[in-house]
């Protein structure tokens, strides 16, 4: 089959590899119909996540048709159309029983590596470095899905791929980030970063009753999409001072909750940005936390900072004094996707959410290298790239 492989920092290629096999009783094989490139895939592409190896198959946002099931999978049949959550979860362990699926104790075969970095291991993740299991990902024609009796969710034929694909990651991730803000009537929520996760955070904050949502980015096309997602005000941080504008908009108090949907490759201005760039380039600091620092400083006293953005390692100059003295609550975590898929599918079915508005690029699987490049450089107003393995010419290729 064809699969998108990591070939080194900044190098992606489509290689012909063997088809996946059932390796465990609870496995299934999925024929991928749609798969997306995630912002967090760019961190792998840029070399900011350790334990990547040449030949690793990428991709954790994918859906398709069940073509084979192991003897332990009784709830799926060949031919079922399913979306697959990005964390791999057993459904049996302490954390799975508490519905903290991204913390599954049994799905990371390389748990010893994760323990070295983080003290404990999270769940395995498809196509996301060896520290989270080294599982072959779904940017391929076929993919092996472990614990297929727990993760994949059947979707109705009436909903096309583009409406349900984002249930695999970015929609639940944005939703969980907004839910973590414990939104009360009258609340103001500020969202840093208007990529897919930021856009769904904005949309979810509105769904959960936020009175006023402020979106922060520097790309006009992304700020336009933020408006579409329901943002009341958009701030271009190249034009205005974010901190003073936020104070201004909230009568000096600051937003009730701040969401950092940017993560470890934040783009900021001034001396600290250069400091972070240099340290990150020299691998002295793995993450560049510009948005997080600003969110912490901006947040009102007693407020919540919710962090769906990806961080992998160490950050410097975190204003911890602000967290303590302003009594902030920090919420984070890889998304417990399984928990949100069904309720969000219902919202899609009844028309409350149409997640397909974030898609700007539809390409073939063998155009992956170009897709990654365009997405990383945010060329052609790129927000989300969807690949369709098996489709000769996806409708709307390179159209936004």
């Amino acid at each position: 089959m064809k699969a998108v492989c990591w070939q080194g920092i900044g190098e992606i290629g489509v290689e012909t590899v063997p088809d996946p096999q059932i390796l465990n009783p609870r496995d299934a094989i999925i024929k991928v119909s749609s798969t997306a490139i995630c912002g967090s895939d760019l961190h792998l592409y840029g070399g900011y996540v350790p334990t990547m190896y040449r030949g690793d198959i990428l991709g954790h946002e994918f859906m398709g048709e069940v073509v084979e099931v192991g003897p332990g999978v009784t709830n799926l049949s060949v031919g079922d159309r399913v979306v697959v959550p990005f964390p791999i979860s057993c459904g049996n362990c302490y954390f799975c029983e508490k519905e903290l699926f991204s913390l599954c104790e049994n799905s990371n075969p390389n748990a010893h590596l994760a323990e070295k970095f983080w003290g404990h291991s999270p769940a395995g993740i498809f196509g996301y470095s060896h520290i989270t299991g080294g599982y072959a990902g779904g940017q391929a024609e076929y993919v092996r899905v472990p614990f297929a009796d727990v993760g994949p969710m059947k979707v109705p034929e009436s909903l096309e791929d583009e409406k349900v694909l984002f249930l695999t990651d970015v929609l639940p991730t944005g939703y969980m980030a907004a839910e973590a803000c414990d939104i009360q009537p009258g609340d103001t929520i500020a969202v840093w970063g208007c990529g897919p996760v930021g856009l769904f955070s904005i949309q979810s904050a509105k769904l959960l009753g936020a009175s006023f949502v402020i979106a922060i980015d520097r790309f006009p096309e992304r700020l336009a999409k933020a408006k579409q997602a329901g943002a009341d005000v958009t701030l271009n941080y190249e034009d205005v001072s974010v901190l003073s504008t936020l104070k201004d908009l909230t009568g000096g108090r600051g937003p009730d909750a701040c969401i950092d949907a940017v993560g470890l490759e934040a783009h900021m201005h001034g001396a600290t940005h250069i400091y972070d760039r240099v340290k990150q380039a020299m691998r002295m600091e793995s993450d560049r936390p510009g948005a997080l620092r600003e969110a912490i400083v901006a947040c009102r006293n007693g407020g919540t900072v919710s962090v769906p953005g990806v961080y992998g390692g160490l950050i410097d100059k975190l204003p911890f004094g602000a967290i303590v003295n302003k009594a902030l609550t920090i919420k984070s975590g890889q998304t417990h996707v399984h928990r949100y898929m069904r309720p969000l599918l219902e919202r899609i079915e009844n028309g409350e959410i149409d997640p397909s508005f974030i898609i700007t690029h539809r390409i073939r699987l063998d155009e992956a290298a170009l897709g990654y490049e365009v997405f990383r450089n945010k060329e052609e107003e790129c927000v989300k790239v969807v690949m369709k393995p098996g489709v000769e010419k996806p409708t709307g290729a390179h159209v936004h």
Partner: protein
Amino acid sequence: MSTESFDTPTSARSTSETAQYASPYSSYSEWSQEEMEMEARREFPLEPRQLSNFLGWFSIGLGLAEILAPRALGRAIGVGDHPAIMRALGVREITSGLGLLSQRATGAWAWSRVGGDAMDLALLGAAARNPDANPQRIAMAATAVLGVAALDVYASRELSGRELPATDEVVSQSLAINSTPQALYAFWRNVENLPRFMAHLESVTATGDRTSHWIAKAPAGMSVEWDAEIVRDDANEGLAWQTVEGSEIQHQGTVRFEPARSGRGTIVRVEMRYVPPAGKVGVQLARILGEEPKVQIKDDLRRLKQLIETGEVATTLGQPTGRRSLIGRTTLGRRMQ
């Protein structure tokens, strides 16, 4: 037990494992030297060994520069002209670099680097008060040293925890498992289940109610065998076993199944001890146990947990991959793919 099994302690044994681990892309010939070197630069070192090698060579390089070109280096980093101090620093760097590369007690050597970093920082601080010093360059050098210091501390902590243990020391590990002491006891008491989660075992065969014959895998398809006996059997609470008298290898183990607080499953506590004999068998055994018996036993317990809780052992062995590099093929071996 029969002593025969120890007459040929290392029998050639071709295991199906080796075949399974061979990648379908095992031909290296298509790779040029250049390509492989490029790979080496791109991929991240995984093992603390590689980290200590890196720090070792870094120390030696820096040390040589300090000894051979003290004035130029002093000017470059802006601390002014202090060749004697520079040369002393160079000697210190090279000593700790050689120590790191010799790989013996690497933790201590890495900590000597941390000490050295502190010294460098103190000197840079002193130099900053010196009128002929260039404050901007000193600040840059201090930032670099701070970064290296962070790496040093990281490596020291990694290495200190992972030095080669004396093989006869008792290794203990514990893990919470979502099951009852009864079920776990029953699973373990059937000793033939042990190879399903103890990676170094090829087979355990019950030879009586309390006795069993163990075969452990060694690299290159070799194996080591011994007989063991259950010496303590507390139903649903724990077990203790040891090799029978006269065995070439002395091995003891205990396992206890403690109900966890508030009904949160069972805490399984394992203690194991291997006393290898001198000579060939001893060498084989050391290889089987690997450099980190503690990590290996923890991984065994994790596999037990997976088997008991999910009915299978999580794996990626046998999944497709794109073309691996030389580094990938050598580092990603038995454990992952």
